[in-house]
Every structure is written in structure tokens, then in C-alpha cells.
């Protein structure tokens, strides 16, 4: 038995291979447009295109067969467990899709006057209020279209705050285990990155932090629970240290799923928080996007929030306001990823007060349970503390014993029918397997997924070629990434 195989389509008729271009035949077409019902006008010659665009020419039937096939080559949450650490790949409720495609939302133009879009504006208002309550912040912007943009938004607010105080400062502290977007955003906000080491428990080394903290430090960015899935026990001390030197503390909300209704960044002393709605609030990831990255801030930072903002007017109506002289400006061409916010709204209000807490409870229970099942084969890097909603295990021992690496294990898990966890992140852990089962998986699925990992572990000793050669059940096998970068073929 080679394993039950990845649940994707691996077969199909030969004419289904190749790109859409390969299906193209001159003159074939899918489009239809109404007959021109006005006199034809041509653009001035100097602006006109010469010759036609090299797009494929196919029938609608070809399009459908082709992209249906491509979809079937792909694994999604709807196909099965997708335990990518740091990504909260939970089940995305179908009702959110239905809500977001209501014509009143779907066909609203972003430049419509406020009185014609009161429904959208009230939705944004209510969502902002809810996100503030969940995070313990005063106000929030819904503009950022993803977490990374939320980070930059938050850092520009930080910069505006310090600039107003007379000195923008120079550095932002980031734990060494942080997500790559954190340092990248810091750079884009004009700050320098100063890494903060972790201690042996996998937490921020507070004494090191104390040494690094000074008047040059604009702030600290922190994920809590951190990327190792551990709650920063000394969080109050940490925020105190930073506040003590006049810095601000930024909460990277990627892991908010772990603490919903249990504790709030605002109450821990954070000044700025971003939320990945596509993680915590189950707006689907769309193969890599879109998402949304709302940013909440404490009272004192409200003046710096991007504009436009939705405000409740005296007459009870909602309006987009732009007159905020201290605002950092605009982070998105329009209002952000509105239709994603509709999905987040649906998720938040479906769950409500108790439901959100239960989300965190069960996400943490699932992670602890799965970590427990795996602990002998793939021990946690920092086993002293129980993980929150995710955990980082390591295949270091396995590698030493057998030469099999985390990547080989991941590929074998594919052959056994599952999407593997994140591997090689966080970078500070050798042979990392970062596993986040989320709350929407059943115990049975966790048992089966763990069994696949344990089977791979056994096979690493008994039949390592199964792992070296994996995957063998996929439409393609391991791909030559070096070749891709060397012989750049980025288009047909």
C-alpha cells in the first residue's frame, strides 16, 4: 500500500493538459456582447492599438472544462484538514459566501453617496465596534486588505505618533521567531529591525528586551500566543518595558483565534492590533487571497487612523468622513476588501459572545490533543509549556536518526491523504513542523492525521524511500524549484 493518496484529481484525458493557450484556435470565442446600439466611434490614431492582443481564443465550454480541471487539481479546506500553522485554515461557513454575494453589496459602487449605501456603512460600523470589543481597542480601520498591510498601517500610525511627539525614533523590536511580514513592514515604515532573542522556554527573553529598550525604540511587534503557539506569560512586563521607554506595542493578530473571549490585546497593554479576518474569522483564503487586515488602536492613537472612516452622525445615519488632519492617509484605493468584511461580520455575529469564546476553547483543545498524540515521534520544541491553538514540533531527532527531513515527512503525509502542516517555520526551530488544526476538525480527523504522521515516522526507519520519493500520488511529484528560478519561465 502506497497510502490512500492525496485527494486531488490526478487523471484526465490528454486534451486537458497544457495551458488555456494550448486550447486556443483562431476565431473561437466564448464572449458575447450586445450589438452596438450607438454610432461607432474610433479613438484617435495615435492612441489606437495596432494588431490584436495575444489572448487565447476558446469557447465557453473549453473555459469550463479547463478551469474545472484546474480546480480539481487543488486541495482546499473543503477537501480536508489543512493544518498550516499560523494560518487558521478553519472551515469557511457557506452562509458567508451567500451573504457577500447579495446584489446590494456586490453591485455597490465605492463612490456612491453615503445616503445610498447606508447598509454597507452600518455593517462596517457594527463590525468595527465588534472588533474593538474583541480586541479591547478604541477604534479600528477596516481599510487594510491583508495582515501585512495592517502591519504597515499600524507602524505608520506608530511613526505618526512619535513624529507628533517630536521624534519618530529609529528602531522596532521584533522577536526572532516573528513572521516575515513583520520585519518587512518595519522596513517599509522607515524603521530598522532589531531582533529580540527568545529564552529557553520559547518566550521573549525579557531581560534581553530590557537591555534593548531605549529612547530609540519606536515600539515592539509581538504575536501572542507567539509563533511557537505559546502564550507570553510575562506579557504585562513586556508591554511595561516598552511603554517605559515611550514606545508602543503592536499586536500581530494572526493568532487571535487562541484567545477570543479569554483575554484581549488591549487589556494586555497593546496599543495597536491587526486582525487577519481570513484566519480568525474564517473568510476564505482564496488560494492566497483576498483577506482583510483591520487595525485597532487605543484611544490616543485614534487621530492617526487612515481615512476615510465610517462615522455615526448625529441624525443616526452613517457617513464616510475624511477630515482628520492627523490621519496617516489612505492605505487602499477605496474602503478595503469590503466583501471580505461582510464575511467576517457574518462569522462574528453568527457566533456571538459565547460562540467566539468556544472557538478559542476548542481550537486550543484540538492543538493540545494533537500535540499529545504526536509527542513521542515529533516532540514540541518547547514542551515545558502547553501550546495554545497551535504548536511547533520538530523532526530534528528523526533527521538525526534517519536523515529524513521535515519536508520528506510532509510530502509523505500528502501520499497518506492529507495536507501537511507548515514546515521550516518559524525559522528559529530546526526541522520545524508548525501545526494548527483549528477548532473545526473532529477528533476522528485529528486521530487519522496524527496516525499519518506516525506512520511516516515509522516508515522513516523502516522504508525511508517511501519518504524520499514522496509524493507519488499527486498530479506532479516534487518540483525542481532551483530550475524554476534558473530558467525563468514566468509566462507562456
Amino acid at each position, binding site marked *: 500500500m502506497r497510502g490512500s493518496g492525496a485527494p486531488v484529481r490526478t487523471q484526465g484525458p490528454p486534451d486537458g493538459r497544457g495551458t488555456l493557450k494550448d486550447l486556443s484556435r483562431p476565431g473561437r470565442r466564448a464572449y458575447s456582447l450586445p450589438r452596438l446600439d450607438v454610432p461607432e466611434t474610433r479613438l484617435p490614431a495615435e492612441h489606437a492599438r495596432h494588431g490584436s492582443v495575444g489572448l487565447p481564443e476558446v469557447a465557453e465550454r473549453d473555459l469550463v472544462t479547463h478551469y474545472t480541471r484546474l480546480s480539481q487539481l487543488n486541495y482546499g479546506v473543503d477537501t480536508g484538514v489543512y493544518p498550516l500553522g499560523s494560518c487558521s485554515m478553519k472551515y469557511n461557513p457557506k452562509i458567508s459566501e451567500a451573504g457577500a454575494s447579495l446584489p446590494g453589496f456586490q453591485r455597490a459602487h465605492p463612490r456612491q453617496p453615503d445616503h445610498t449605501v447606508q447598509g454597507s456603512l452600518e455593517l462596517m460600523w457594527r463590525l468595527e465596534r465588534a472588533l474593538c470589543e474583541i480586541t479591547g481597542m478604541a477604534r479600528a480601520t477596516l481599510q487594510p486588505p491583508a495582515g*501585512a498591510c495592517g502591519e504597515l498601517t499600524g507602524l505608520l500610525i506608530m511613526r505618526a505618533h512619535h513624529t507628533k511627539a517630536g521624534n519618530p525614533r529609529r528602531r522596532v523590536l521584533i522577536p526572532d521567531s516573528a513572521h516575515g511580514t513583520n520585519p*518587512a513592514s518595519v522596513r517599509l515604515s522607515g524603521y530598522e529591525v532589531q531582533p529580540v532573542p527568545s529564552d529557553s522556554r520559547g518566550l521573549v527573553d525579557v531581560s534581553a528586551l530590557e537591555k534593548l529598550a531605549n529612547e530609540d525604540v519606536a515600539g515592539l511587534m509581538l504575536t501572542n500566543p507567539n509563533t511557537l503557539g505559546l502564550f507570553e506569560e510575562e506579557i504585562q512586563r513586556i508591554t511595561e518595558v516598552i511603554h517605559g521607554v515611550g514606545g508602543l506595542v503592536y499586536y500581530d493578530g494572526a493568532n487571535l483565534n487562541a484567545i477570543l473571549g479569554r483575554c484581549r490585546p488591549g487589556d494586555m497593554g497593546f496599543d495597536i492590533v491587526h486582525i487577519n479576518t481570513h484566519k480568525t474569522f474564517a473568510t476564505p483564503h482564496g488560494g492566497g487571497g483576498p483577506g482583510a487586515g483591520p487595525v485597532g488602536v487605543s484611544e490616543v492613537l485614534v487621530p492617526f487612523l487612515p481615512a476615510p472612516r465610517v462615522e455615526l452622525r448625529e441624525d443616526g445615519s452613517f457617513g464616510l468622513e475624511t477630515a482628520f488632519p492627523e490621519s496617516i492617509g489612505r492605505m487602499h484605493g477605496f474602503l478595503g476588501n469590503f466583501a471580505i468584511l461582510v464575511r467576517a461580520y457574518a462569522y462574528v455575529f453568527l457566533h456571538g459572545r459565547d460562540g467566539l469564546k468556544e472557538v478559542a476553547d476548542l481550537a486550543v483543545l484540538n492543538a493540545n490533543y494533537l500535540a499529545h498524540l504526536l509527542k513521542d515521534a515529533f516532540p514540541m520544541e518547547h514542551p515545558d509549556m502547553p501550546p495554545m491553538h497551535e504548536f511547533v514540533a520538530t523532526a530534528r531527532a528523526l533527521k538525526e536518526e534517519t536523515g529524513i527531513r521535515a519536508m520528506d515527512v510532509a510530502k509523505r503525509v500528502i501520499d497518506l491523504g492529507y495536507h501537511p502542516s507548515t514546515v521550516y517555520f518559524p525559522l528559529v526551530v530546526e526541522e520545524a513542523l508548525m501545526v494548527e488544526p483549528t477548532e473545526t476538525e473532529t477528533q476522528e480527523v485529528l486521530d487519522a492525521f496524527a496516525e499519518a504522521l506516525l506512520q511516516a515516522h515509522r516508515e522513516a526507519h523502516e522504508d525511508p524511500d517511501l519518504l524520499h520519493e514522496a509524493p507519488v500520488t499527486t498530479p506532479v511529484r516534487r518540483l525542481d524549484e532551483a530550475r524554476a528560478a534558473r530558467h525563468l519561465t514566468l509566462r507562456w
Partner: protein
Amino acid sequence: MRFAPHTDEDVARMLGAIGRSSVDELFDQIPAAVRLDRPLDLPEGVSEMEILADLTELAGRNRSAQDLICFAGGGAYDHYVPAVVWSLAGRSEFYTSYTPYQPELSQGVLQALFEYQSMICELTGLEVSNASLYDGATALAEAVNLARSSRGRDRVLVSGGVDPRYVETLRTYGRGSGYEPEVFEVQGGRGGRPEVGDDVACVIVQHPNAYGLLEPARDLFGQAHAGGARAIQIFDPLSLGVMAPPGDLRADIAVAEGQVLGNHLNHGGPYLGVIATRLDDVRRLPGRIVGETRDVDGRTGYVLTLQAREQHIRREKATSNICTNQTLMAIAATVYLGWLGPQGLEELGRACASKAAYAAERLTEVPGVELLFDDAPFFKEFPLRLPRPAAEVRDALVERGYLAVPLPDADGHALLVAVTERRTREEIDGLATALRAVLA
């Protein structure tokens, strides 16, 4: 409503397995002082049918392009989205998947993105495209970063014909990156003379511009190049069936709002940031790029490539901080462009241009209404000067069932009218009649 599957027995059994007596225990690490000792101040959860009723009520309070005849433009347009686009892009294997980190399980998304990149290159006449950015405005900010790093120069010149929202976005991003966009004036709504000194990294021109007008883009880009700067064009993807593409105009970087490519208006998002440039700058491109390669058996396959540009590898040295992007919108754009094909793109461009020209003719017949810039050529939208404040006229038109929006930065008397292939002659005539009535 909840989506977690756990029954009480499941919870008890799992707690038993890990040797815990309650779920609360799992949260013991959280210091007591920061624990929330009350329920969240949110309503109780509701059922699916209640949330749908709530959303339906909210959506029903919008008067969208479903109810109003939409001549609104200025960066987002009521183009027709064929049914096939979201029938396919909406397949759950696409929309519930993540960034294709495991390429063997993600060939569908990867190949679709490869096709997207290819189509953007075909459209723009440029050599490389990435796999999407957030939207047009942020794509421009990324293009500026690219140009500045590529040229090793600082200053950023922006035509006065560029959408003010884009300029605002640049100004915001520039605060972090250390530049302040400098706007050079246009004459008669277009053109202008950028002073391209040897510290200028790039010159940004929107063509068709924010007034809807066609720019002397070749000439402006020539000036940029003469000063050693990069030429950045903000373009309209749906103009390219009838208009010369950025590559032919010698733009070095082309960015666009890709909403028009099969994406719904969605009250402003999610949209699609398009960016394309020259091959020699590929390593400076922001965001995901998909490349073709082989697997160990020699089969063609697709992977994320040149990842050394990206934040998850290069951290603060990355070309951008972007991680989550707009992949699904890019897939929709791919299906849409496949639907349109070269002929459709041309026919659609011709329809927009012809209908806009017809609309301009009919609307300027209304007493007191004239083109804001006489004689300036335009593609699918154009600005009118009204005898009354545009915001008032807009609201009065809404009463009559029509939507058109003021030009944001004009003197308050200018209305921008966008006409897509979706508008019929009858609707255009109706707008003219309504405008006449409003101004009477």
C-alpha cells in the same frame, strides 16, 4: 451557530487523553490580570437564517448598481461579469485553499496564476507580471518602490491627471519609504511637463487619466526616459483592445486596477492590483511569482519562484511586505480574459468608446452642460462641467434612478460620466433626460 464539531463527550474524551480536567485549564498560562473576567459585550450568537435576514436587510438598504443605472466611474466600473467567471473562480477547491506552499497539492491555483501572468504580459506588452497585488492604488505604491530601488533615485513625479486617491495612497506609503510624491500640473486636463532631474526615480502617468482623458503618454514617457527615470503607467485593462498597450508606449512599469477584469464592484473591494514590468527588474517585483518547472519525473508543473524576493525568506530585505494577496481575483480575471479573448476585448473597448462618445454628445445637448475639457480625447469616461454643484446634481440624479459621481478634485461643478458596454442607448438617453430635468 457554531462550526466546531465537538460534542460534550468529544471534549471530555479529549481532555481525558491529555490529562486535563477542564478546558479552562488550557488557558492557565494567561496571567490572571489580563484575563477577561466577563463575557464579550457582543450579542448572543444567531442562527444562519437570522444572519442572512440581517445581511439581506443591510444589503437592501443599499441602492446599488442593481437598482440604479450606473454611470459611476473614477476607478471602479460596472462592467458585465459573465456567469462563467464566478462559476469557476467560485469553486471551493480554489477559494478555500491557501497560498500554494505545497505545490503538489496546488497545481490548480498555480497554473491559473501562471496563465494570469501570461495574459497580463499579453495585454500590457511587458515582459513579466506578478501574481497579484491588493488593488490599483497599492500596486502603484509598489511600482514606485520598484522604480526607486531599480534607479537608486529618490524623487517621484506624479501627473496631475492621476487619480487623487492614488496620490493620497502614495503619500501615505511614502511617509514610511521616505519620499513625498510631487505632482506636476496638467494643461487642459492632461499632458504637462515633468521636470525630470537626475534625482527623479520615476514619472507616473495615468492613461486614460482620472478625468477619463487620453494622455500624450509616449511623449511623457520619453521625457521620463530622457531624464533617466522609469516611466510608470496606470492603465485600464479593458482599454487595451482598442488602445496602444503600455509596452508600445514605452512604459517601464504598468499598474492597473484589475476590478474591471471579471470582479464585482463589491463596494470597493476585494479588487485586483495588476503590475507588470521589464524582465531585468524581475527580481525587484513585489509579491508572488509563479514559474514553470519540471517534477522529478520530467513533467511540467508550476511553483512559486524567486521567493528570495519575499518577506518569508528575506524578511526586512524583501522587495515588499505583501503576503496574502488577491489570488482569487486574479483567477477570476484569468477566466474573464479567457472569456473575452482578443476579439471580445476589442469589441468591448469599441463599445465603451462609442457609447461614451454618444453619451457625451447627448449630455452636452443639455442646456448649461459642457465638456470640462473641450476637444480632449477620452475612452470610456469623461468630465462634464455643470451649471450647479455636482454633488447636488448627483443626488438629484439618484432620485431619478441614475448614478454618476463628481470629479473629486475639481471645483465642485464637475461630474464624471463613465459608460461601460453594459449601458444601452436607451439608458444613456434616459440619463440625458434626467439631467435635463434636474437642471431645468
